Protein backbone atom coordinates (compact mmCIF):
# COMPACT_ATOMS: atom_id res chain seq x y z
CA UNK A 1 0.00 0.00 0.00
CA UNK A 2 1.30 3.41 -0.79
CA UNK A 3 0.48 6.88 0.42
CA UNK A 4 2.20 9.92 -0.98
CA UNK A 5 4.58 7.73 -2.86
CA UNK A 6 5.84 5.89 0.16
CA UNK A 7 5.67 2.18 0.86
CA UNK A 8 3.67 1.50 3.97
CA UNK A 9 2.81 -1.63 5.87
CA UNK A 10 -0.89 -1.12 6.53
CA UNK A 11 -1.74 -4.51 5.09
CA UNK A 12 0.53 -6.22 7.57
CA UNK A 13 -0.43 -4.31 10.67
CA UNK A 14 -3.39 -6.44 11.65
CA UNK A 15 -1.28 -9.57 11.57
CA UNK A 16 1.53 -7.72 13.29
CA UNK A 17 -0.74 -6.68 16.16
CA UNK A 18 -2.05 -10.21 16.48
CA UNK A 19 1.50 -11.59 16.37
CA UNK A 20 0.71 -13.67 13.32
CA UNK A 21 3.67 -12.59 11.23
CA UNK A 22 6.83 -14.65 10.83
CA UNK A 23 9.80 -13.15 12.61
CA UNK A 24 11.38 -11.76 9.46
CA UNK A 25 8.25 -9.90 8.42
CA UNK A 26 7.59 -8.74 11.96
CA UNK A 27 11.07 -7.31 12.05
CA UNK A 28 10.49 -5.45 8.79
CA UNK A 29 7.28 -4.00 10.14
CA UNK A 30 9.01 -2.94 13.35
CA UNK A 31 11.70 -1.20 11.36
CA UNK A 32 9.17 0.57 9.19
CA UNK A 33 7.08 1.63 12.19
CA UNK A 34 10.05 3.25 13.83
CA UNK A 35 10.16 5.85 11.08
CA UNK A 36 6.64 6.13 9.72
CA UNK A 37 4.04 8.31 11.39
CA UNK A 38 1.22 7.06 9.16
CA UNK A 39 1.74 3.45 10.10
CA UNK A 40 2.39 4.26 13.74
CA UNK A 41 -1.00 5.89 13.96
CA UNK A 42 -2.73 2.95 12.32
CA UNK A 43 -0.82 0.53 14.48
CA UNK A 44 -1.88 2.38 17.60
CA UNK A 45 -5.53 2.15 16.57
CA UNK A 46 -5.30 -1.57 15.90
CA UNK A 47 -3.39 -2.17 19.10
CA UNK A 48 -6.19 -0.47 21.00
CA UNK A 49 -8.56 -3.04 19.53
CA UNK A 50 -6.34 -5.88 20.64
CA UNK A 51 -5.99 -4.34 24.08
CA UNK A 52 -9.71 -4.35 24.73
CA UNK A 53 -10.63 -7.68 23.15
CA UNK A 54 -10.28 -9.61 26.43
CA UNK A 55 -13.00 -7.44 27.91
CA UNK A 56 -15.46 -8.95 25.45
CA UNK A 57 -15.02 -12.46 26.75
CA UNK A 58 -17.59 -14.17 28.85
CA UNK A 59 -16.42 -13.78 32.43
CA UNK A 60 -16.03 -16.74 34.70
CA UNK A 61 -14.73 -17.00 38.24
CA UNK A 62 -11.90 -19.24 39.32
CA UNK A 63 -12.57 -21.45 42.30
CA UNK A 64 -11.93 -19.93 45.75
CA UNK A 65 -8.96 -22.20 46.25
CA UNK A 66 -6.99 -20.22 43.66
CA UNK A 67 -7.01 -17.17 45.89
CA UNK A 68 -6.23 -19.29 48.92
CA UNK A 69 -3.30 -20.84 47.12
CA UNK A 70 -2.13 -17.44 45.94
CA UNK A 71 -2.19 -15.89 49.38
CA UNK A 72 -0.34 -18.90 50.75
CA UNK A 73 2.21 -18.81 47.96
CA UNK A 74 3.18 -15.20 48.47
CA UNK A 75 4.58 -15.92 51.90
CA UNK A 76 7.98 -15.83 50.38
CA UNK A 77 11.06 -13.97 51.68
CA UNK A 78 9.55 -10.82 50.22
CA UNK A 79 6.42 -11.00 52.34
CA UNK A 80 8.35 -12.04 55.41
CA UNK A 81 10.17 -8.76 55.37
CA UNK A 82 7.00 -6.74 55.11
CA UNK A 83 5.55 -4.81 57.96
CA UNK A 84 1.86 -5.44 58.25
CA UNK A 85 -0.65 -2.95 59.45
CA UNK A 86 -2.05 0.40 58.68
CA UNK A 87 1.05 2.48 59.14
CA UNK A 88 3.07 0.47 56.67
CA UNK A 89 0.24 0.54 54.18
CA UNK A 90 0.13 4.27 54.20
CA UNK A 91 3.88 4.42 53.89
CA UNK A 92 3.60 2.22 50.90
CA UNK A 93 1.58 4.92 49.23
CA UNK A 94 4.82 6.79 48.80
CA UNK A 95 5.53 4.65 45.80
CA UNK A 96 2.61 6.20 43.99
CA UNK A 97 4.35 9.49 43.83
CA UNK A 98 7.65 8.18 42.63
CA UNK A 99 6.24 7.31 39.28
CA UNK A 100 7.02 9.40 36.32
CA UNK A 101 4.43 9.49 33.61
CA UNK A 102 5.79 8.62 30.22
CA UNK A 103 6.14 11.28 27.62
CA UNK A 104 3.05 11.83 25.55
CA UNK A 105 2.61 12.16 21.84
CA UNK A 106 5.18 10.42 19.79
CA UNK A 107 6.72 8.72 22.74
CA UNK A 108 3.38 7.18 23.58
CA UNK A 109 2.90 5.97 20.06
CA UNK A 110 6.31 4.39 20.10
CA UNK A 111 5.62 2.77 23.41
CA UNK A 112 2.40 1.35 21.99
CA UNK A 113 4.22 0.14 18.96
CA UNK A 114 6.80 -1.70 20.95
CA UNK A 115 4.86 -2.69 24.03
CA UNK A 116 3.26 -5.74 22.57
CA UNK A 117 6.59 -7.28 21.81
CA UNK A 118 8.33 -6.09 24.91
CA UNK A 119 5.55 -6.58 27.40
CA UNK A 120 6.79 -9.78 28.92
CA UNK A 121 10.35 -8.60 29.03
CA UNK A 122 9.25 -5.39 30.65
CA UNK A 123 7.21 -7.32 33.14
CA UNK A 124 10.30 -9.16 34.22
CA UNK A 125 12.55 -6.16 34.37
CA UNK A 126 11.85 -5.09 37.91
CA UNK A 127 12.61 -1.47 38.33
CA UNK A 128 12.99 -0.92 42.00
CA UNK A 129 11.88 2.57 42.74
CA UNK A 130 11.63 1.87 46.42
CA UNK A 131 15.02 3.32 47.16
CA UNK A 132 13.83 6.84 46.59
CA UNK A 133 13.98 8.75 49.85
CA UNK A 134 10.58 9.75 51.10
CA UNK A 135 9.13 11.00 54.32
CA UNK A 136 5.69 9.93 55.42
CA UNK A 137 3.90 12.09 57.96
CA UNK A 138 0.65 10.95 59.50
CA UNK A 139 -1.73 13.80 60.23
CA UNK A 140 -3.75 13.71 63.44
CA UNK A 141 -7.51 13.95 63.13
CA UNK A 142 -9.69 16.14 65.30
CA UNK A 143 -13.04 15.79 67.01
CA UNK A 144 -14.58 17.25 63.87
CA UNK A 145 -13.52 14.18 61.89
CA UNK A 146 -12.59 11.43 64.33
CA UNK A 147 -12.42 8.77 61.62
CA UNK A 148 -10.38 10.81 59.17
CA UNK A 149 -6.99 9.57 58.07
CA UNK A 150 -4.44 11.86 56.50
CA UNK A 151 -0.96 11.12 55.23
CA UNK A 152 1.57 13.47 53.72
CA UNK A 153 4.13 11.88 51.44
CA UNK A 154 6.99 14.32 51.16
CA UNK A 155 10.27 14.34 49.33
CA UNK A 156 13.25 13.97 51.62
CA UNK A 157 14.31 17.52 50.80
CA UNK A 158 10.82 18.90 51.13
CA UNK A 159 10.78 19.77 47.45
CA UNK A 160 7.40 18.20 46.85
CA UNK A 161 4.59 16.55 48.72
CA UNK A 162 1.22 14.97 48.25
CA UNK A 163 -1.51 14.74 50.82
CA UNK A 164 -3.77 11.67 50.76
CA UNK A 165 -6.88 11.63 52.91
CA UNK A 166 -9.53 9.07 53.67
CA UNK A 167 -12.77 9.08 55.63
CA UNK A 168 -13.13 12.83 55.62
CA UNK A 169 -16.76 14.02 55.57
CA UNK A 170 -18.23 14.69 52.15
CA UNK A 171 -18.81 18.43 51.86
CA UNK A 172 -21.66 20.20 50.15
CA UNK A 173 -21.07 21.85 46.80
CA UNK A 174 -20.29 25.23 48.35
CA UNK A 175 -17.38 24.00 50.41
CA UNK A 176 -13.89 22.57 49.91
CA UNK A 177 -11.05 21.43 52.06
CA UNK A 178 -8.11 23.80 52.18
CA UNK A 179 -4.58 22.88 53.15
CA UNK A 180 -2.51 25.31 55.17
CA UNK A 181 1.22 25.40 55.73
CA UNK A 182 2.24 27.27 58.88
CA UNK A 183 5.59 28.99 59.43
CA UNK A 184 6.23 31.29 62.36
CA UNK A 185 2.48 31.51 62.90
CA UNK A 186 1.78 32.63 59.36
CA UNK A 187 -0.56 30.43 57.33
CA UNK A 188 -0.07 29.93 53.62
CA UNK A 189 -2.64 28.19 51.47
CA UNK A 190 -1.23 25.11 49.78
CA UNK A 191 -4.27 24.15 47.77
CA UNK A 192 -7.87 23.02 47.75
CA UNK A 193 -9.37 19.59 47.36
CA UNK A 194 -12.62 17.72 47.63
CA UNK A 195 -13.30 14.14 48.59
CA UNK A 196 -15.51 11.49 47.10
CA UNK A 197 -18.47 9.98 48.86
CA UNK A 198 -16.15 7.69 50.74
CA UNK A 199 -14.08 10.55 52.01
CA UNK A 200 -11.08 9.84 49.81
CA UNK A 201 -9.08 12.57 48.14
CA UNK A 202 -5.58 13.75 47.40
CA UNK A 203 -3.73 16.95 46.64
CA UNK A 204 -0.29 17.74 45.37
CA UNK A 205 0.84 20.56 47.59
CA UNK A 206 2.07 23.85 46.25
CA UNK A 207 4.20 26.14 48.35
CA UNK A 208 6.60 29.03 47.80
CA UNK A 209 9.14 27.43 50.17
CA UNK A 210 10.39 23.91 50.64
CA UNK A 211 7.89 21.96 52.70
CA UNK A 212 10.43 21.23 55.42
CA UNK A 213 10.78 24.94 56.00
CA UNK A 214 7.27 25.05 57.43
CA UNK A 215 6.46 24.23 61.02
CA UNK A 216 3.16 22.43 60.54
CA UNK A 217 0.32 21.58 58.20
CA UNK A 218 -3.43 21.74 58.69
CA UNK A 219 -6.64 21.07 56.80
CA UNK A 220 -9.79 23.12 57.31
CA UNK A 221 -13.21 23.42 55.73
CA UNK A 222 -13.55 26.57 53.69
CA UNK A 223 -15.95 28.10 51.17
CA UNK A 224 -15.48 26.78 47.62
CA UNK A 225 -12.56 28.56 46.04
CA UNK A 226 -10.76 28.93 49.34
CA UNK A 227 -10.17 31.62 51.93
CA UNK A 228 -7.24 33.98 52.47
CA UNK A 229 -6.87 32.49 55.93
CA UNK A 230 -8.47 29.58 57.75
CA UNK A 231 -12.05 30.25 58.84
CA UNK A 232 -13.61 26.81 59.21
CA UNK A 233 -13.18 23.79 61.40
CA UNK A 234 -9.80 22.11 61.48
CA UNK A 235 -10.04 18.48 60.40
CA UNK A 236 -6.44 17.27 60.22
CA UNK A 237 -3.06 18.55 61.25
CA UNK A 238 0.54 17.71 62.05
CA UNK A 239 3.90 19.24 62.76
CA UNK A 240 6.36 18.99 59.89
CA UNK A 241 9.92 17.73 60.25
CA UNK A 242 12.72 20.16 59.50
Amino acid at each position, binding site marked *: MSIQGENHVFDLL*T*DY*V*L*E*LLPDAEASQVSTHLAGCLFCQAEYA*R*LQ*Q*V*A*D*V*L*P*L*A*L*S*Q*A*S*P*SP*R*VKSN*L*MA*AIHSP*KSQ*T*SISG*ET*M*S*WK*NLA*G*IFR*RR*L*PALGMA*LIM*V*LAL*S*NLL*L*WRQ*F*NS*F*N*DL*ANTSMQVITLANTNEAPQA*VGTLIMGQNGDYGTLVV*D*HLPLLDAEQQYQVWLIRDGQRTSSGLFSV*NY*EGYGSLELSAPLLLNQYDSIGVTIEPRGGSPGPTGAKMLGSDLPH
Partner: protein
Amino acid sequence: MAMDYTHFTDEILLNLIASSDENALSEFYDRYSRLVYSVALNTLSDIERAEEVTQDVFERVWEKAQSYNSGQGRVATWLASIARHRSIDLYRQTRSRHENMHITWQEAEANDLPDGQNVEWEVDLHQRQQRIRWMVAQLPAEQKLALGMAFFQGLTHTEIAGALNEPVGTVKTRIRLGMQKLRTLLQDEQLT
Protein backbone atom coordinates in the same frame (compact mmCIF):
# COMPACT_ATOMS: atom_id res chain seq x y z
CA MET B 1 -9.09 3.14 61.48
CA ALA B 2 -8.25 0.50 58.91
CA MET B 3 -7.96 1.54 55.32
CA ASP B 4 -10.68 0.60 52.88
CA TYR B 5 -8.94 -0.74 49.80
CA THR B 6 -11.98 -1.03 47.59
CA HIS B 7 -11.91 2.52 46.35
CA PHE B 8 -8.19 2.72 45.73
CA THR B 9 -7.19 3.11 42.13
CA ASP B 10 -5.40 0.28 40.39
CA GLU B 11 -2.14 2.21 40.47
CA ILE B 12 -2.37 2.76 44.20
CA LEU B 13 -3.03 -0.92 44.72
CA LEU B 14 -0.04 -1.86 42.59
CA ASN B 15 2.19 0.42 44.58
CA LEU B 16 0.95 -1.09 47.79
CA ILE B 17 1.51 -4.56 46.37
CA ALA B 18 5.03 -3.57 45.41
CA SER B 19 5.57 -2.85 49.07
CA SER B 20 4.26 -6.26 50.07
CA ASP B 21 0.81 -5.25 51.20
CA GLU B 22 -1.18 -8.48 51.13
CA ASN B 23 -4.50 -6.71 51.58
CA ALA B 24 -3.80 -4.78 48.41
CA LEU B 25 -3.09 -7.98 46.52
CA SER B 26 -6.30 -9.47 47.85
CA GLU B 27 -8.30 -6.51 46.61
CA PHE B 28 -6.45 -6.52 43.28
CA TYR B 29 -7.19 -10.21 42.87
CA ASP B 30 -10.87 -9.70 43.63
CA ARG B 31 -10.92 -6.95 41.05
CA TYR B 32 -9.26 -8.75 38.17
CA SER B 33 -9.21 -12.50 38.76
CA ARG B 34 -12.31 -13.02 36.62
CA LEU B 35 -10.71 -11.22 33.68
CA VAL B 36 -7.43 -13.12 33.97
CA TYR B 37 -9.16 -16.44 34.46
CA SER B 38 -11.49 -15.85 31.52
CA VAL B 39 -8.61 -15.11 29.19
CA ALA B 40 -6.80 -18.24 30.34
CA LEU B 41 -9.90 -20.40 30.12
CA ASN B 42 -10.67 -19.26 26.59
CA THR B 43 -7.17 -20.10 25.51
CA LEU B 44 -6.74 -23.36 27.34
CA SER B 45 -10.28 -24.74 27.66
CA ASP B 46 -9.08 -26.42 30.78
CA ILE B 47 -10.28 -25.25 34.18
CA GLU B 48 -7.36 -26.59 36.14
CA ARG B 49 -4.72 -25.11 33.89
CA ALA B 50 -6.61 -21.83 33.61
CA GLU B 51 -6.57 -21.62 37.38
CA GLU B 52 -2.87 -22.34 37.39
CA VAL B 53 -2.29 -19.48 34.98
CA THR B 54 -4.48 -17.22 37.10
CA GLN B 55 -2.50 -17.92 40.22
CA ASP B 56 0.75 -17.57 38.31
CA VAL B 57 -0.22 -14.18 36.89
CA PHE B 58 -1.07 -12.79 40.31
CA GLU B 59 2.08 -14.24 41.85
CA ARG B 60 4.02 -12.35 39.22
CA VAL B 61 2.04 -9.23 40.02
CA TRP B 62 3.06 -9.71 43.64
CA GLU B 63 6.70 -10.08 42.67
CA LYS B 64 6.86 -7.50 39.89
CA ALA B 65 4.17 -4.95 40.57
CA GLN B 66 6.62 -2.11 40.15
CA SER B 67 7.16 -3.05 36.53
CA TYR B 68 3.71 -1.81 35.59
CA ASN B 69 3.99 1.33 33.53
CA SER B 70 0.90 3.38 32.80
CA GLY B 71 2.31 3.94 29.32
CA GLN B 72 1.42 0.33 28.61
CA GLY B 73 -2.23 1.16 28.99
CA ARG B 74 -4.82 0.40 31.57
CA VAL B 75 -4.16 -2.17 34.21
CA ALA B 76 -6.84 -4.45 32.80
CA THR B 77 -5.08 -4.36 29.44
CA TRP B 78 -1.74 -5.11 31.02
CA LEU B 79 -3.05 -8.02 33.03
CA ALA B 80 -5.00 -9.47 30.13
CA SER B 81 -1.92 -9.32 27.95
CA ILE B 82 0.15 -11.15 30.53
CA ALA B 83 -2.55 -13.75 30.98
CA ARG B 84 -2.91 -14.22 27.25
CA HIS B 85 0.79 -14.70 26.61
CA ARG B 86 1.16 -17.08 29.52
CA SER B 87 -1.83 -19.05 28.37
CA ILE B 88 -0.72 -19.20 24.76
CA ASP B 89 2.70 -20.44 25.84
CA LEU B 90 1.03 -23.20 27.80
CA TYR B 91 -1.42 -23.92 25.03
CA ARG B 92 1.34 -24.32 22.47
CA GLN B 93 3.05 -26.87 24.66
CA THR B 94 0.00 -29.11 24.76
CA ARG B 95 -2.32 -28.02 21.99
CA SER B 96 -2.57 -31.48 20.49
CA ARG B 97 -4.46 -32.57 23.57
CA HIS B 98 -6.71 -29.55 23.76
CA GLU B 99 -8.00 -28.46 20.39
CA ASN B 100 -10.37 -25.61 20.97
CA MET B 101 -12.44 -23.92 18.33
CA HIS B 102 -14.80 -22.13 20.62
CA ILE B 103 -14.31 -18.66 22.04
CA THR B 104 -16.97 -17.63 24.50
CA TRP B 105 -17.53 -14.02 23.61
CA GLN B 106 -19.96 -12.52 26.05
CA GLU B 107 -23.18 -11.34 24.45
CA ALA B 108 -23.96 -7.66 24.94
CA GLU B 109 -26.47 -7.42 27.74
CA ALA B 110 -28.67 -4.91 29.41
CA ASN B 111 -26.78 -2.29 31.29
CA ASP B 112 -26.97 -3.99 34.66
CA LEU B 113 -24.21 -3.28 37.13
CA PRO B 114 -22.25 -6.09 38.71
CA ASP B 115 -22.76 -7.13 42.27
CA GLY B 116 -20.60 -5.43 44.82
CA GLN B 117 -20.10 -1.92 45.99
CA ASN B 118 -20.09 -0.43 42.52
CA VAL B 119 -17.14 1.77 43.24
CA GLU B 120 -15.74 3.87 40.47
CA TRP B 121 -13.30 1.35 39.04
CA GLU B 122 -16.00 -1.32 38.96
CA VAL B 123 -18.49 0.82 37.12
CA ASP B 124 -15.83 1.95 34.67
CA LEU B 125 -14.69 -1.59 33.92
CA HIS B 126 -18.24 -2.81 33.53
CA GLN B 127 -19.15 -0.02 31.14
CA ARG B 128 -16.07 -0.70 29.04
CA GLN B 129 -16.92 -4.38 28.92
CA GLN B 130 -20.45 -3.65 27.83
CA ARG B 131 -19.30 -1.40 25.03
CA ILE B 132 -16.67 -3.80 23.76
CA ARG B 133 -19.11 -6.68 23.87
CA TRP B 134 -21.54 -4.69 21.82
CA MET B 135 -18.84 -4.00 19.24
CA VAL B 136 -17.78 -7.61 19.01
CA ALA B 137 -21.42 -8.59 18.66
CA GLN B 138 -21.52 -6.56 15.43
CA LEU B 139 -19.06 -8.96 13.77
CA PRO B 140 -20.20 -11.95 11.75
CA ALA B 141 -19.74 -15.21 13.61
CA GLU B 142 -17.00 -16.46 11.29
CA GLN B 143 -14.95 -13.29 11.85
CA LYS B 144 -15.34 -13.55 15.60
CA LEU B 145 -14.23 -17.15 15.55
CA ALA B 146 -11.16 -16.59 13.38
CA LEU B 147 -10.15 -13.53 15.33
CA GLY B 148 -10.59 -15.31 18.64
CA MET B 149 -8.53 -18.30 17.53
CA ALA B 150 -5.73 -16.01 16.39
CA PHE B 151 -5.78 -13.69 19.36
CA PHE B 152 -6.52 -15.94 22.30
CA GLN B 153 -4.95 -19.16 21.12
CA GLY B 154 -2.07 -17.77 19.13
CA LEU B 155 -2.85 -19.94 16.11
CA THR B 156 -1.36 -19.09 12.75
CA HIS B 157 -3.43 -18.45 9.63
CA THR B 158 -2.58 -21.92 8.39
CA GLU B 159 -3.54 -23.57 11.65
CA ILE B 160 -6.83 -21.73 11.79
CA ALA B 161 -7.54 -22.58 8.17
CA GLY B 162 -6.85 -26.22 8.88
CA ALA B 163 -9.04 -26.26 11.96
CA LEU B 164 -11.91 -24.57 10.16
CA ASN B 165 -11.37 -26.34 6.85
CA GLU B 166 -11.26 -23.02 5.05
CA PRO B 167 -8.72 -21.51 2.64
CA VAL B 168 -5.91 -19.54 4.27
CA GLY B 169 -6.86 -16.48 2.27
CA THR B 170 -10.38 -16.62 3.64
CA VAL B 171 -9.09 -16.79 7.18
CA LYS B 172 -6.79 -13.83 6.61
CA THR B 173 -9.62 -11.79 5.20
CA ARG B 174 -11.95 -12.62 8.06
CA ILE B 175 -9.39 -11.61 10.65
CA ARG B 176 -8.49 -8.41 8.86
CA LEU B 177 -12.10 -7.39 8.30
CA GLY B 178 -12.95 -8.16 11.89
CA MET B 179 -10.12 -6.05 13.23
CA GLN B 180 -10.88 -3.19 10.89
CA LYS B 181 -14.54 -3.22 11.85
CA LEU B 182 -13.67 -3.13 15.54
CA ARG B 183 -11.14 -0.40 14.97
CA THR B 184 -13.78 1.72 13.29
CA LEU B 185 -16.33 1.07 16.02
CA LEU B 186 -13.79 1.79 18.68
CA GLN B 187 -12.85 5.07 17.12
CA ASP B 188 -16.49 6.03 16.80
CA GLU B 189 -17.10 5.22 20.43
CA GLN B 190 -13.86 6.89 21.54
CA LEU B 191 -13.56 4.07 23.96
CA THR B 192 -9.94 4.30 24.81
